[in-house]
């Protein structure tokens, strides 16, 4: 792991304030001249993000464009992991770039320059807009969020009012349970965390064009000889981004939460029987991207830094270093046992016992160092940016992607990966004080998603979304 942090960030910050974002080296300057001719804040941003010391920069592109693929020069596990982690951060930054009303990234501004911002990915279509009741055709790309009947009272409010409250479009959060119904996660104010899944235009088009949004469409699709679901892959050669899906976890903000540390938005919380409008903060974020070099997809996962403490095998318990966490209460004697599901019934309309969650696999030191580098980069745009409070947990990628028939999962690295807000209860187990991983039951993005199918039991190319077709 190269340590450029001190040199690079100091240099960038110093130059930024002294000369207005001139790049620190010739290579970076040359790159910028070819990337964009934008001027003003965006130009400054481009220069900042063209810092070649953190990268590999995978291709010449603007910071609001996700990398097309990973094609770094690494030859061993550690250096390639670093390339994938850089890819994850660059993708995170691109997807969280400020969005225009049409959902396109706003190239005239910079991520977090106003502390928080609306984001590109939140303008994408949400799963319930694609997989609709009775197998109806999805809503057109760019449609506003669909408001269910039970929330009509709220949706009848003037949209302008909602826009004034939130910096991003209204959001609808219905889901509260986790993969395989392993259980919900409850925050320290006894509220259920909520989830949503969204896909990019590329992935949406594939679903739409192949009519995979309905059960009937899926049956017809597989009538063709040798038909297989095969989403488009991101490619450096064609300079195109492939299918991307994101899953986000949100918590309801309360007066004790420091909202300056979260990306927040106003959301309609749907509990089937009633709806409410709440300010919610982003606490977990998965990104899955299919690329040429990773037909098993690349899986990046981020969390808000205040979520949970890490487990320490020496202490045989959590290493507590904060007074308040989102999903853990320090020095609590009457709390639930560590990483235990909350008591049933699981009714998100009612409060439940707060979760007592601990991260079982610590963030790798190299990834932690990279997080620090990107945090420094982000704070050089705005010292109060909310994006500095998000950390990459890791990136899972296939080490042997070549022959999916013989080795379908491509032997992923790291072998296991869990986000504490999204795979809370399948992080692994503790045996004699040590964390133990169990294949098939401990969280692995690629291995789990490799089992995903369509509604008629066919391989669905690593997405469970197609099971939602009606």
């Amino acid at each position, binding site marked *: 792991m190269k340590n450029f942090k001190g040199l690079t960030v100091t240099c960038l910050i110093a130059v930024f304030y002294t000369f207005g974002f001139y790049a620190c080296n010739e290579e970076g300057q040359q790159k910028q001249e070819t990337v964009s001719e934008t001027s003003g804040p965006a130009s400054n941003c481009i220069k900042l993000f063209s810092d070649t010391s953190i990268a590999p920069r995978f291709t010449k592109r603007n910071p609001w464009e996700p990398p097309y693929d990973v094609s770094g020069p690494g030859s061993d596990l550690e250096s*390639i992991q670093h390339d994938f982690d850089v890819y994850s951060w660059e993708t995170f930054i691109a997807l969280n770039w400020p969005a225009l009303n049409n959902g396109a990234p706003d190239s005239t501004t910079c991520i977090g320059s106003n502390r928080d911002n609306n984001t590109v990915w939140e303008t994408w279509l949400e799963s319930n807009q694609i997989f609709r009741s009775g197998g109806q055709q999805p809503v057109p790309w760019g449609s506003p969020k669909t408001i269910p009947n039970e929330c009509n009272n709220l949706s009848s409010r003037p949209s302008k009012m909602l826009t004034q409250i939130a910096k991003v479009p209204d959001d609808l959060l219905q889901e509260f349970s986790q993969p395989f119904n392993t259980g919900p996660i409850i925050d320290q104010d006894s509220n259920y965390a909520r989830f949503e899944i969204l896909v990019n235009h590329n992935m949406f088009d594939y679903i739409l064009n192949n009519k995979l949004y309905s059960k009937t469409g899926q049956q017809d699709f597989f009538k063709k000889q040798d038909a297989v679901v095969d989403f488009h892959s991101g490619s450096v050669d064609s300079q195109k981004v492939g299918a991307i899906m994101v899953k986000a976890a949100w918590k309801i903000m309360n007066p004790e939460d420091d909202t300056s540390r979260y990306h927040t938005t106003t959301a309609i919380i749907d509990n089937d029987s009633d709806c409410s409008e709440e300010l919610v903060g982003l606490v977990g974020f998965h990104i899955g991207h299919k690329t040429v070099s990773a037909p098993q997809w690349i899986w990046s996962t981020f969390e808000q830094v205040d979520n949970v403490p890490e487990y320490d095998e020496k202490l045989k318990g959590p290493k507590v270093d904060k007074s308040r966490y989102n999903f853990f209460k320090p020095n609590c004697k009457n709390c639930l046992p560590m990483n235990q599901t909350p008591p049933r019934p699981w009714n998100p309309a009612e409060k439940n016992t707060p979760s007592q969650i601990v991260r079982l696999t610590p963030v790798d030191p190299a990834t932690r160092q990279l997080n620090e580098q990107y945090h420094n980069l982000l704070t050089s745009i705005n010292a109060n940016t909310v994006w500095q409070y998000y950390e990459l947990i890791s990136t899972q990628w296939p*080490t042997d992607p070549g022959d999916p028939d013989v080795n379908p999962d491509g032997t992923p690295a790291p072998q296991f990966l869990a986000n504490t807000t999204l795979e809370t209860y399948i992080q692994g187990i503790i045996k004699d004080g040590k964390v133990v991983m169990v294949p098939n039951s401990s969280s692995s993005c690629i291995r789990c998603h490799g089992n995903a199918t369509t509604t008629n039991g066919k391989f669905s190319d690593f997405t469970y979304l197609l099971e939602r077709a009606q």
Partner: protein
Amino acid sequence: MNSFDIFKQLSVALTGFTESQLFPPLDPKGLGKQYFNTINEKIGADDFNMMLSAFNSAPDKNLFLEQNLQKGQPYAPVLQNIIKMWYFGIWFYLDKAPDNVKTDLTAKTNTIFFPRGGYEVISSEAYTSGLMWQAMDAHPMGYSEFKTGYWAELPPQVQKQQKKNSSTAKAKTNE
């Protein structure tokens, strides 16, 4: 050559799999290292290194294995255990023989081992990655990396062989 490198050669010779299959250049599972450490732990570094040195210095390594895998040979239980470890992901327990047994047999090694009975699974990954599953084109109970619906199709290697045969036959017809 260090002892781990010799262990790589020994593993290839004992299993019939290639070095890149047993010790991939990008190896997140790290089974080879795990097995190397297991043997060191179970029989002790002295005895393990002595066996590795004997293998490494043998002019004909295949002949060395042929002879030393025979029942009654001092290295046989450990060598057999290494084969079983790679194929099953299991360590079969060994006991140390009393000193008089050692002298009766041979003076080639510090310690004579013999099977005690019983075993332990080295790790969950070791079990699911056992070479026997690849050799059989199958998978362990309760765990499969194949895509859903594989059970209705021929095993991947058989499919590949069929395709190969078919293209060879086609090429011959064209001749």
